[in-house]
């Protein structure tokens, strides 16, 4: 087996006010895997994500991305390799046009001219948003903004894509369109979500996080079928949804 795309060992972190959020989180993800990260509010999922590219510095433990440890010296390269799509696309799309926003990442890494245009159009085409390239982001719908937010990260050619609650607040059609986009990407994926059917559909593997630790890790259908585990971690399936009967239409890439 190849080196993990992402390896997290014994991660610990407390906020400046003393709240301990991460208490020894441990896991690794192999190249090409698609993994869902589940867990109740306050479990530390978003805090964990901010460690994956060195925005936050852990009090203990370490993060390695494709063999490269996250350190102040490596942080620039790490941020190219780990593409994070934040929960609120309005936080992610901060420039005045979609084009400028998608170009922001690659331009920070010295990409210019025609190559930059190619990256921008390539990333927008991958998410089906090439038509809005010159629009201001705040004139797009939430679903469109989410897809453009994914494009801003894809334009950097990352090795692993991390999404923080990609399907929240979206109408069913937008949710489906985004699923189509994500399913079509050939990339390592880590997806935080409360949307359990979404996790089952897109990710063969899932982890459950609670109290700052990974408390379960296994095939998504198996975790979702374990009632005790689910209720111990404040997770609930939608009424009438049976994971053993659900047949994900898209069997994810091996």
């Amino acid at each position, binding site marked *: 087996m190849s080196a993990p795309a992402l390896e997290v060992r014994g991660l610990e972190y407390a906020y400046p006010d003393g709240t301990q959020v991460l208490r020894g989180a441990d896991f690794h993800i192999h190249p090409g895997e698609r993994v869902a990260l589940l867990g109740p509010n306050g479990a530390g999922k978003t805090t964990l994500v*901010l460690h994956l590219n060195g925005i936050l510095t852990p009090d203990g433990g370490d993060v390695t991305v494709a063999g490269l440890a996250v350190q102040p010296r490596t942080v620039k390269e790490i941020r190219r390799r780990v593409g994070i799509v934040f929960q609120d696309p309005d*936080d*992610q799309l901060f*420039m*005045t046009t979609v084009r*400028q926003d998608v170009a922001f990442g690659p331009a920070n890494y010295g990409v210019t001219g025609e190559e930059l245009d190619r990256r921008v159009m390539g990333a927008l085409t991958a998410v089906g948003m090439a038509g809005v390239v010159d629009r*201001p982001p705040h004139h797009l719908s939430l679903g469109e903004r989410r897809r453009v937010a994914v494009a801003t*990260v894809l334009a950097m050619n990352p090795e692993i894509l991390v999404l923080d609650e990609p399907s929240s607040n979206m109408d069913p059609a937008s949710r489906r369109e985004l699923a189509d986009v994500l399913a079509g990407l050939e990339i390592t994926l880590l997806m935080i979500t409360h949307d359990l059917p979404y996790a089952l559909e897109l990710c063969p593997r899932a982890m459950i996080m609670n109290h700052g630790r990974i408390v379960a890790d296994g095939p998504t259908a198996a975790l979702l079928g374990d009632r005790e585990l689910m209720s111990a971690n404040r997770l609930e399936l939608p009424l009438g949804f049976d994971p053993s009967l659900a047949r994900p239409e898209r069997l994810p890439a091996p």
Partner: protein
Amino acid sequence: MSAGHAHALYVHGDSRVHALPAHVKLVALLIVIVAVVATPRERVGVFAAHAVVIIAAAACAHLSPRFIGGRLLIGAPFLAFAVLLPFVGGGDRVVVGALSLSVGGLWGAWSVLVKGTLALAASVVVTATTPVPALLTGLGRLRVPVVITEIAGFMVRYLEVIAGEMHRAKVAMAARGYQPRWAWQGTALATSAGALFIRSHERGERVYDAMLSRGYQGRLPQLGATAATRADWARALALPLCAAAAAALAVIG
């Protein structure tokens, strides 16, 4: 007074005015406004000439007179106080019906109205033909400090987001029967403005995290500034220079 709104200022089009680089249009606008403001108020004919210049520019930009007129109405309240001038002005007076008006005050009102209106019409032509992001890069090309244009960019981007948050807070308060009429009832509104500041700040921090995540090193990459050719300058400045010449003749003559 301020009643700014994030209305759709830009009117999509493919006219020659639309195609000009933003910084060239900004320079042209400044020339027209300076010419209008410098024209002595008694030279009514010169103001007519300025109006012709602005109408010609609007026609080149395929903007209808109705559109320009509508936009002028939005600016009209800012000029409303001009109506007071004939009453409070000094000097010779003229009797119109039951009113005794100051001649100087009437000239003053005319001056404020005509100059304010023409300047506004000129700026409408530019803002309707130039997308806001292009205006900002244009300002950057005119050597406005990067700090200013970058802060302006973030402001433009988040204006509607924050206005939306404020609007939702107001709706939520109105839904529970809040309808302030007196100053001391305004504290709830001010408190929600305080909460809005905190939310704006926290959003600023998240935006900064998102920027860092994509390799931000302390400077925004300079993207999308179009260079201007000599022909662009000639095309953009032809009309404004007519206005400037008219104003110069009026001042000398």
